[in-house]
């Protein structure tokens, strides 16, 4: 459905995309994961025809996407990273303005606005000015403003930036339902949890190149280990860091350490070590590795570095 062939885009000081090729199938929920500045937003801008690539082609359903192909844009819905709304207008007025740009007949537009507002639980607030909305409400409105023309493809550029967990979950549920109903979704994020939870296939992008591509399981198979060990941070575990460091690579997270076992690691040796140092079993947990670990393995850096 979406075909990206050898796309390169350069800015005066940096190559944002370097010969990127990618295919996304119909009704796929594709995640593009990468740190800030990796090239995610540039790829989205090209996909939506906001800018032209320096070389390479992008097509949707066989139709080329460029700055000049305005009709093809009716197939695409774009949820920008910023809250692209008129603050001084009401939710309903905003949706009317953006909907009209897609030549939706008035009768249908009114109906769709009502349906979408109800779907994201903003119908009761439809006559309130956007400036009175919370961050989460604005995000939800920002999302449905891109869906009024019922696009085949929805491009979401980090749509949950600055959103509280409750609104984030609501957005996830909404997008999942939408995908199930047939909409192809490309979702960029630098939160691996979002990519892991939502996407059937994930591309990891760094320095303008796709460095890994596949389903979550396929990607995780690339890791040198199957599981990681999470150890809760407390004065005792912090004091005995050396015990864990001997057994593998130790990453320090906000509330825990994550131990990536080295080759030849034996679980029995690990338990003997923690027992000797008085560390409780309840502070230790076996976990499935994350995309963060894969990114670290591939680039030597962390996603949020």
């Amino acid at each position, binding site marked *: 459905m979406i075909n990206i062939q050898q796309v390169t885009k350069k800015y005066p000081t940096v190559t944002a995309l370097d010969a990127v090729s990618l295919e996304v199938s119909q009704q796929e929920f594709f995640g593009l994961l990468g740190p800030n500045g990796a090239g995610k937003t540039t790829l989205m801008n090209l996909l939506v025809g906001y800018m032209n690539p320096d070389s390479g082609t992008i097509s949707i359903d066989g139709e080329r996407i460029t700055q000049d192909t305005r009709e093809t*844009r009716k197939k695409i819905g774009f949820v*920008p990273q910023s809250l692209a709304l008129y603050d001084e207008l009401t939710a309903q007025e905003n949706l009317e303005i953006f909907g009209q740009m897609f030549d939706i007949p008035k009768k249908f537009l009114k109906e769709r606005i009502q349906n979408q507002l109800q779907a994201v639980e903003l119908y009761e607030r439809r006559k309130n000015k956007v400036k009175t909305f919370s961050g989460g409400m604005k995000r939800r409105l920002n999302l449905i403003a891109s869906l009024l023309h019922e696009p085949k493809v929805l491009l979401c550029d980090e749509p949950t930036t600055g959103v509280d967990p409750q609104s984030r979950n609501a957005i996830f549920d909404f997008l999942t339902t939408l995908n199930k109903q047939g909409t192809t979704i490309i979702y960029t994020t630098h939160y691996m949890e979002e990519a892991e939870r939502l996407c059937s296939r994930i591309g990891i992008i760094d320095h303008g190149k796709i460095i890994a591509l596949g389903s979550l399981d396929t990607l995780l198979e690339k890791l040198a280990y199957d599981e990681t060990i999470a150890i809760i941070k407390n004065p005792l575990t912090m004091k005995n860091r050396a015990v864990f460091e001997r057994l593998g690579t130790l990453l320090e997270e906000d509330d825990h350490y994550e131990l990536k076992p080295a080759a030849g690691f034996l679980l029995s040796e690990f338990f003997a070590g923690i027992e000797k140092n008085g560390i409780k079993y309840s502070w230790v947990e076996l976990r499935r590795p994350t995309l963060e670990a894969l990114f670290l393995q591939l680039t030597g850096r962390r996603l949020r570095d």
Partner: protein
Amino acid sequence: MKQVYRLFKSSYRIFWNDKVSVALTFIVPLVLMSIFGAVFGGSGSGPQGIGLAVLNQSSSPIAKHIESSLDTMKVFRIIKSFQTDSGKTILFDTLSIQDYVRNGKASAALVLPPDTYADTSAGLYVKFYYDPKNDIEMQTVKGLIQQLVFSQFPSVMTQSMLQQAEHYLGKQSGRIFNRSMASLVHTYFKIDTNRLLHPSLSNFSFKSMDSSQGSTNFLKNIVRMESQQLIGKEMKNPWATRSVGGWGIMFLMFTLTATSSSLFDERRSGVLMRLLTSPVSRTHILWNKYLFNLSLGIIQLLFMFLFGWVMFQVDIFSNFFNLLLIIIAASVACTALGMLIAAFSQTRQQANGLGTLLILSMSAIGGAWFPTSFMPSTIQFFSKLTVVYWSIEGFMEVLWRGAGFVAIIPHLAVLFGIGAIFNIISVRQFRKGHIFD
């Protein structure tokens, strides 16, 4: 105290890094002070180049002297003939000189009639026709003309007295009487007897007269200056009729610069991008901005003129069609200026700073605040390059003079021309610029 010092220092650092604030703080006042200084502060040479039509029908030396004195005064641009439609140059007569002023080609006219000065009477008679479209300018012109005419009176008076003495006492006795009188005046007032007995017009100039002297009132009774206002006599509120256009244009430019700069807000919020990812092109967005600003400009000017009509009885309806044409032309030019400012700016702050500087400067030199004739000749040249000047002149033509379509063609042409040039530059700059990136 240390904390206050740190905050104080950081305030200066923030201020200094905000180039727009720095420009507004120092450059805008500097430019305006320079303009005001040139006009009122004595650094300039006073009013210059005010169009004055002159017709001298008298053969008397005193009339010739007034005419030649006028020729040397920088304040006036003396016009003695006009061109017909066929391009023929014709000297003024009493009717054509009045028409010339009525048509706005000169601010005033001075006619020295055949009986400007007569040997048999001690008096001076001149006719002054004027168009008070600019009140300050006309007060100045009238004052200078009066000063010039009155300054001729001492020589007129002396000559007349000498002639009268010889006429009544006989030539010889008259001469003896005149010499005795001159001697007495010399004794008590130390005035050269030769100067009294052989008065020369060149001995007197209007500069030697001090109008504050008590002689002025005396002279007023003897020098007859017949003034006639040719335009605007029937105006209910001349001040408002003259001012409404200038104020309207200044505020219009502020409005249009602000609305053009809204592109920056739309870019920052992402709305511009959202629009560009729908079936909307960059050209659509620029056209929308242009048409919105243009219509808003027309509505704002109409609103201001309607307010002038309601509050100050400014007559906007007797020549409404032509007024509407000038409103449209002025809005076209001002909208294009607003777009040009937005096109050359990187941020809204920059656009506001640049806009404020340009608008205030153009209002000052374009004649919105004081007559352009009060400015040095170089600034007068630049004033004719401003939207403000041509808009104000256009409004004056239709509101003050009741000018028809043909008379306002030059104003319309210049304003539409400015609009077209600014638009071409803006579109090119928008294409090169980063507002859509």
